[in-house]
């Protein structure tokens, strides 16, 4: 019996790994064809990506980027597990980062108190912003896709309104950059100095902690079980005594709270202020990464690292004379391939299962007929 379970697990593992590997390989093939079509040789391009991507300063860059992307991926994945499509992560993190930056700039308390306050402010803002969509869905049946997209635009407008000199921001550098008041240096998050390779953001540990919490809450608690049940079948969950509405609102709020953390590595480890050129669009990157990682805490981490690796190396490809659009092509193709590959692998797995069950049933049937014959 023990042997049997281990065999099935191996197959599960194989099937689980097959899809992403298939997707990445297919993406590489398509990318190579695209580079060939532009009249260039893909060989040196991939070679350059590898040597450049594995240099130590590139690795620090990738880990720093992946920290942000991982939080985005987890935030989206919480919604996904619940069958909620939280497109509003983008607005949630920007609004959260903005208010956190305003608070951080105004605080004069010591760092050990300021940093948690900034984090709480960010998570609360993200959660509140997401709660609007959650409550609308629960009480009025508004699709969260529509409401979160609209809330993204509203968030942009609110930030634009408040990020003005004389409101919550000030003019800087030759009068062309508007930014919130910079955080005092005591409120900076710790970083790890790796010498010439640059600073590794200490926020990576927070990201890891969030990943562990995500894995534990969803996989090991009653709440996580309820959440996954609602995601798989609302009626079944309701029948087994789970309050579906409460779960929808709660998971939206948690997703928003994690979204609030997305801007924090940049704010606390890098920019120390919110200016008009604070990175945008990471919420959408998070959707791609959650898809790539299959909502699995480790999968999302690998997806985030892959994304960071691609950005770092394709930045350098542009330098080598390849077209800068190649990054978009690779990322787009990977996401498409992932969706297709998972479906292909799922069907293949289903077929294998059916065959196996069929074979076992046939064997059983054969055994019984044999017995009957003997009897």
């Amino acid at each position, binding site marked *: 019996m023990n042997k049997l379970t281990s065999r099935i697990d191996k197959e599960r593992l194989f099937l689980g790994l097959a899809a992403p590997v298939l997707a990445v390989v297919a993406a590489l093939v398509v990318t190579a064809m695209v580079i060939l079509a532009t009249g260039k040789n893909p060989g040196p391009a991939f070679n350059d990506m590898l040597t450049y991507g*594995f240099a130590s300063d590139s690795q620090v*860059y990738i880990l720093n980027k992946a920290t942000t992307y991982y939080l985005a991926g987890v935030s989206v994945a919480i919604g996904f597990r619940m069958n909620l499509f939280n497109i509003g992560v983008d607005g949630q993190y920007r609004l959260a980062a903005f208010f956190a930056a305003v608070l951080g700039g105004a605080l004069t308390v010591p760092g050990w108190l300021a940093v948690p306050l900034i984090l709480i402010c960010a998570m609360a803002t993200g959660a509140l912003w997401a709660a609007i969509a959650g409550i609308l869905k629960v009480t009025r049946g508004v699709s969260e896709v529509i409401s979160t997209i609209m809330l993204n635009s509203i968030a942009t407008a609110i930030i634009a309104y408040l990020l003005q000199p004389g409101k919550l921001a000030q003019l800087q550098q*030759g*009068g062309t950059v*508007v930014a919130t008041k910079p955080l005092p240096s005591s409120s900076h998050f710790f970083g790890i100095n790796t010498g010439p390779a640059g600073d590794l953001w200490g926020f990576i540990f927070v990201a890891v902690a969030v990943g562990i919490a995500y894995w534990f809450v969803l996989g090991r608690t009653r709440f996580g079980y309820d959440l996954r049940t609602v995601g798989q079948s609302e009626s079944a969950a309701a029948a087994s005594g789970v309050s579906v509405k409460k779960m929808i609102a709660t998971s939206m709020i948690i997703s928003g709270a994690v979204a609030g953390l997305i801007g924090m590595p940049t704010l606390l480890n890098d920019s120390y202020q919110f200016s*008009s*050129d604070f990175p945008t669009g*990471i919420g959408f990157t998070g959707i791609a990464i959650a898809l790539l990682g299959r909502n699995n805490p480790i999968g999302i981490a690998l997806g985030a690292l892959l994304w960071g690796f691609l950005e770092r190396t394709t930045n350098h490809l542009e330098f080598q004379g390849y077209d800068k659009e190649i990054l978009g092509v690779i990322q787009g193709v990977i996401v498409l391939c992932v969706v297709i590959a998972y479906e292909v692998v799922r069907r293949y797995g289903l077929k294998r299962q059916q065959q196996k069950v069929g074979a076992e049933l046939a064997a059983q049937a054969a055994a019984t007929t044999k017995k009957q014959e003997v009897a």
Partner: protein
Amino acid sequence: MRRVAKLSAACFATAALAITATACGSTSSDNNSSSSSSGGGKGVKIGLAYDVGGRGDRSFNDSAARGADKAEKEFGGSIKELTAKTSDTEADREQRLSDLAEAGYNPIVAVGYSYAPAVTKMAAKYPKTSFGIVDSVVEGKNVNSITFTEEQGSYLAGVAAALKTKKDHVGFIGGVDNPLIKKFEAGYTQGVHDTNPKVKVDVQYLTHGQDTSGFSSPDKGQQAAQGMLDNGADVVYTAAGSSGNGAIEAVHGAKGAWAIGVDSDQYNIPGLAQYKSAILTSMVKNVDVGVYDFIKSVKDGKPLAGNNVYSLAKGGVSLATSGGFINDIQPKLDAAKQKIIAGQIKVKTTP
């Protein structure tokens, strides 16, 4: 069992990462150092880091590109161009500049104010490289800050608008409501009101704050211009990158209305040739002159540094005369220009 498999996968992944991290102790610049000296050849190696949009935006970035092209033609050498993405973080902008510096490009021109913090850092890291930054001011011995007095040029555009309007009603369309574009608005409005206080100025920004699509959405420009025309305005000044193309198209469709272009002399832009009969003038911002001057100074061994303000007096900003539509009011424009240069008129930088 499943748990064990997952755990082992996790261990494997972290171990693999740790190995690559330790095995590759060298930074990318160490890897590059052998190749950086090759490929240079004669002349200046010009590094250009564009803002979002890059070469081909018919406006701001293109103007910088023209300056670099001119320098390349005259001095020989090569241009390396890198372009920003909207999802950029500080790290990306720094990487772009340090890649150029590592490969021996000198000078390096950062086009756009968003490069300011990155230039500050990289100029300190590569003290032997000359950096230029457009539209912002960065301290540093090896940094040339190229800025323009957009408000002065816009003032003249306002004077022209006030003299040309028949309905005493003009409009201003800004791409994004950032401080830079507000300089355009401030100068324009002041120019209009100083010339004729009765003229009404409609002001509209296409997008706000972080949404920078207002610089690259001709459809938004067209809608905004159409709205102003329907509202009774008959001269529309647009400072909105490629969105201005849409505004000019809309103005061309209305009889007797004028458009005022921006950054480049838009009367002479081939892509806008069919609408040029409606382009009264353009507030030209000579980014190309600033970029060219800087490259030339580096080539001559005396790199410019500090804040070089390209003002109306120095020809950094001007009104284009192509088409001859403003010939009749030229004396009045010249008078206004002289007053600004002499300091009799102080143009505001904020509306």
